[in-house]
């Protein structure tokens, strides 16, 4: 595997084939086959690349490949004078972190592509090819994002996945909510991208390069900004704001629930497993930089855990099955950020990995339910599907247990690692995260209970005669594969306390630390190397085991609560909702955040636009029109003056000379005597005047 760039190129080719030829010509089956083949090949190459990474000699942890110059070298000043050079290559880098993401994207991507061939089978022919074109294009951009060795190549993927998300959310573009949601997603993301770009500018200005590794090394050489806010903190904060857009964190999370308007496989791939984790990945990519800015790390942790808690509470009352999962995704992403914020980069990445399995599984399972119920998404109209969709039920149960943190499923290990690290670092973050874990177990079992338990309601009952049956193999197969992943993925990260080696943490370690320890460790502060404590130190094993038992108890409590409310006493939920009407209303309206944004930012911008358009017409253009009117007025005055005054003078002169000439004409008698007389009179007058005046 010498050419990393081939991995993103394969899905790009698939997208091109489906886009240029497929939409016109391909049968649904062909379009799906092309897309799946492209992804499967990319997965194969990724595995080869991964193997090659493992075979690297000790001490070498990355494969760096530069394809070609993108932005050729141009001089540009940096903070230390005009000697800097801006040069950006099309460069790709495989290191432990990107390798993990690579396998997640291509592996789960392939599974979801297979699932889509069946899920989208009822769409019109051209629509299927269009869908697979977008889906492949998404994978191309996602892989570019993951493999890029500098900020700018990553940004290509970063915005590209945003475009594909826009297109896929709005796949059913005839529906206004779908196209609205797509636009909302794109514009909200752009707000984050604004900050991200500023961060990139500042990175170049500070370090004179945009290469990830170079930036990490240079940042490591700078002092930790523990006491005062410095440039590293500003950079980290700007990047994090970018991450809150892509990964749906406070304050930019509002687009993700709406994004559920897209087809369910899209929700699984883009809005659960891959794209939304890009923000987490980016923070991990810059772990050293973030570690040098402890204040921003705290911000990341707090924003993460608050988002986790907030989204979990909203998920408690949602009735749309996909919206529950969407808020759950927001919540779990918050978990990942909380992990990053407490310096547990490996734990956050580990949770990213396990979450990709179980959340993709849950989304695809919900898709299987929706598919069986001919498009019904309201859980109040579901129920009793356990027997009718046994595979879907069983696999979703696995996913639910995994996300709830029940051992030994994958979610247990990754979530527990985060809780443990949070406990060591910041007790408040830990407490809120533990509370979120309780809520997570509760709302997930609520979802299971409302969908699969009890009697058939609404859509389930309507379809009673038609007997909604289990989905085809192309859908259940991926469910089973993902369920296997949701069970097994945790075993790569068994903590030391349970006798494991926490393999994933050691594997990822090089990605989160600078290779040149320039600053003495004493001043290094809470950087990634502190992570060793989690795996090794036997003194904390007891604590770790205690916390583990606690989180298992918390999960059990959540499950038991949901069982009691939604299975044993089905009327209880309504009673509770009535008793706590005000908080319930707050939650069903998602804390009124959307309403607030609409009322302020959205409508404010629109109103400003309208007002400025009026100003433009009346004032700015009005001035021009005024100037032209003034000119016309001036012309009229001039013309009037011209006619009356200027021309009048000329005419007066003419008139005077004409009229005068009438008088003088009389003198021209032609008689010499008269002339002689006049001469005489004149002479006498002159002489007389002369004599008098003198």
């Amino acid at each position, binding site marked *: 595997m010498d050419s990393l760039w081939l991995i993103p190129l394969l899905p790009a080719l698939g997208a091109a084939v489906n886009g240029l030829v497929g939409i016109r010509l391909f049968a649904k089956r062909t379009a799906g086959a092309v897309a799946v083949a492209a992804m499967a090949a990319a997965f194969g190459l990724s595995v080869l690349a991964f193997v090659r990474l493992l075979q690297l000699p000790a001490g070498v942890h990355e494969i760096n490949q530069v394809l070609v110059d993108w932005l050729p070298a141009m001089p540009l000043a940096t903070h230390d004078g005009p000697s800097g050079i801006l040069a950006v290559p099309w460069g790709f880098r495989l290191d432990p972190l990107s390798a993990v993401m690579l396998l997640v994207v291509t592996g789960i991507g392939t599974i979801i592509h297979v699932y889509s061939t069946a899920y989208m089978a009822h769409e019109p022919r051209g629509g299927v090819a269009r869908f697979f074109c977008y889906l492949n294009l998404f994978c191309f951009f996602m892989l570019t994002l993951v493999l890029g060795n500098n900020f700018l190549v990553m940004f290509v993927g970063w915005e590209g996945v945003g475009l594909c998300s826009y297109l896929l959310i709005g796949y059913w573009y005839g529906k206004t909510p779908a196209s609205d949601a797509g636009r909302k997603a794109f514009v909200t993301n752009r707000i984050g991208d604004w900050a991200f770009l500023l961060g990139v500018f500042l990175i170049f200005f500070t370090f004179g390069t945009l290469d990830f590794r170079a930036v990490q*090394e240079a940042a490591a050489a700078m002092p930790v900004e523990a006491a005062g806010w410095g440039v590293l903190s500003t950079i980290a904060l700007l990047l994090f704001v970018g991450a809150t857009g892509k990964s749906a964190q406070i304050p930019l999370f509002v687009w993700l629930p709406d994004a559920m308007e897209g087809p369910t496989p899209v929700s699984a791939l883009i809005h659960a497993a891959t794209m939304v984790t890009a923000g987490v990945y980016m923070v991990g990519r810059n772990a050293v930089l973030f570690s040098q800015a402890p204040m921003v790390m705290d911000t990341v942790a707090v924003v993460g855990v608050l988002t986790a808690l907030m989204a979990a509470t909203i998920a408690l009352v949602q009735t749309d099955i996909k919206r529950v999962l969407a808020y759950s995704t927001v919540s779990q992403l918050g978990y990942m950020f909380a992990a990053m914020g407490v310096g547990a980069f490996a734990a956050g990445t580990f949770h990213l990995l396990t979450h990709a399995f179980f959340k993709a599984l849950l989304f695809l399972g919900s898709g299987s339910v929706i598919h069986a119920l001919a498009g019904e998404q309201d859980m109040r109209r579901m129920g009793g599907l356990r027997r009718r969709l046994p595979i879907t039920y069983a696999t979703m149960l696995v996913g639910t247990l995994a996300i709830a943190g029940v051992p030994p499923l994958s979610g247990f290990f990754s979530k527990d690692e985060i809780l443990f690290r949070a406990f060591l670092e910041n007790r408040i973050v830990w407490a809120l995260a533990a509370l979120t874990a309780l809520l997570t177990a509760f709302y997930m079992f609520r979802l299971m209970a409302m969908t699969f338990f009890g009697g058939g309601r609404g859509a389930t009952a309507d379809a009673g005669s038609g007997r909604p049956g289990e989905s085809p193999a192309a859908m259940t197969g991926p469910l089973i594969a993902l369920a296997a992943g949701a069970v097994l993925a945790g075993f790569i990260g068994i903590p030391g306390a349970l006798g494991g080696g926490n393999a994933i943490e050691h594997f990822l370690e090089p990605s989160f630390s600078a290779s040149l320890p320039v600053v003495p460790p004493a001043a290094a502060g809470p950087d990634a190397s502190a992570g060793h404590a989690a795996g090794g130190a036997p003194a904390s094993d007891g604590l770790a085991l205690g916390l583990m038992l606690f989180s298992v108890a918390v999960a059990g409590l959540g499950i038991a609560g949901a069982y009691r409310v939604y299975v044993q006493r089905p009327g209880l939920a309504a009673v509770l909702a009535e008793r706590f009407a005000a908080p319930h209303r707050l939650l069903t309206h998602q804390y009124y955040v959307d309403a607030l944004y609409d009322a302020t930012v959205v409508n404010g911008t629109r109103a400003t636009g309208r007002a400025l358009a009026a100003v433009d017409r009346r004032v700015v253009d009005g001035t021009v029109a005024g100037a032209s009117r003034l000119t016309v007025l001036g012309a009229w005055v001039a013309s009037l003056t011209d006619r009356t005054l200027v021309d009048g003078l000329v005419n007066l002169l003419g008139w005077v000379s004409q009229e005068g000439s009438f008088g003088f004409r009389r003198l021209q008698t032609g008689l010499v005597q008269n002339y002689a007389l006049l001469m005489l009179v004149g002479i006498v007058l002159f002489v007389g005047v002369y004599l008098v005046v003198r």
Partner: protein
Amino acid sequence: MSHYLSLILFTPLVGAGLLLFVNRRHESVIRWIANAVALAGFAVSLPLWFIYDRTSPAYQFTERLPWIPSIGAEYFVGIDGFSLLLVLLTTLMGLLAMVSSWTAIRERVKEYYICLLVLQAGMLGAFMALDFLLFFVFWEVMLVPMYFLIGVWGSANRLYSAIKFFIYTLVGSVILLLGILALYFSYRAQTGVYSFDITAYQQFGFDPAVQWWAFLALFIGFAIKVPLFPFHTWLPDAHTDAPTAGSVILAAVLLKMGTYGFIRFSLPILPDATHQFVPYVAVLCLVGVVYGALVAMAQQDWKRLIAYSSVSHMAMVMLGLLALNPVGITGSILQQINHGISTGALFLLVGVVYERRHTREIAEYGGLSAVMPVYATVFLVMTMSSIGLPALNGFIGEFLILQGVFVAHKVWAAVAASGIVLGAAYMLSLYQRTMFGTVTNPKNDGLADLGGRELLTFAPLIVLAVWIGLYPKPFLDRLATSVDRVIARVSPEYGPHAMVECGAAPTAETAKTNPAAAFLTAVPCGPDGKPLPQPGTGAPR
């Protein structure tokens, strides 16, 4: 080769002359001749791309003949990297505008094509002229055919818009001429030579007081053309009422005259005044970026919306120049080309549906994705290009501009970058209102998708958008020495040979002080100052 530029310059004029001899009733003959001439004009100019010497800092393909010897005016043409790209943009967009008019224009066909060809010659001349008076003549020559294009073949309010366009820009021209004359006499006073030679002006140190007044005069002339807020209000009217080809030329090429004026004249000839004026002009640019975008958001007319987006984008282009560093200026020039490509394409796209429906009202459309899928795809690509999606051309320009501006002034960059958020908001809103949803207006039901000729006009623009987005190096390389020359005048701290082909390989010592240095991909210099061939990479240079 010595008359190569004249050949390019006069090809359209010869075509216009030829058309004079064709009977006006033979419309299809006229169309064929005009299109053939435009194609020939493009074909003749294309070799420039290959034979232009990107390593030479001098003006190339120069021709110099006495024109009015008594006042020192010459027929003096030549190109550098800036004009190379703009000349090629002009011949390409001229051709596409011509092709797009095939079925759209049914009245006074002969006059229409003559106007287009004369306009083409005027624009080419302005980009090639190295004599200030000659430049001014071409600058004025452009005005007349454009006036007729809007006034005769325009839509409802065409007379108002045409006169407004003409007079507004003429006011600017007159003030520009005053500025030119001030420089001319000042040059004479200090050297004793009557000359309009720009190359001489660019090496001459004008008296600061003269610079100040001349900058102001040139600024007004160029700012109206850009158009920079608050001198922009002629643009929406002119765009709205111009026929499609007129809008395309206006957006793609004519607007570049203003920014070209700054880069060719104001910056290198008046470096001291430039530094004095930069903060004030930058404020106008920042207002323009945000204001243009916000006003675009409120538009109900498809063309007006794109016109205001041009106000916003061109303000960004201007801001890049004001960074006064190589990256900002390079980005600014490239973004002029990008804006020509994407906005030109957007006006062509409006023209396509206008020809079918005869309305530009956004509310009249909706759901076009279903009836015109290919059209919707092309529109999507160009929308993305316009809002600066990475991997397409607009991003490269915006990134370079903003990175350059950031180094010059962080707050400016932060404000200007908000344009990319607002840009996404209004363009995606336009896209949604026209393309998405269901077809509610029965008149849109049977609309024909892009035909072969129409597709042909978009193909080169899409190719260019992707090419510049993925591999802008050939474009940037051709700009390097010309940017250098301007930088040497306005920001001499970058040194005489600012553009780096090679540099010192990072040593262990530099790596110690700056660990990032070890990762810089600098190619080490050979003894001749040229980059050493790198073993193993085999990258074609």
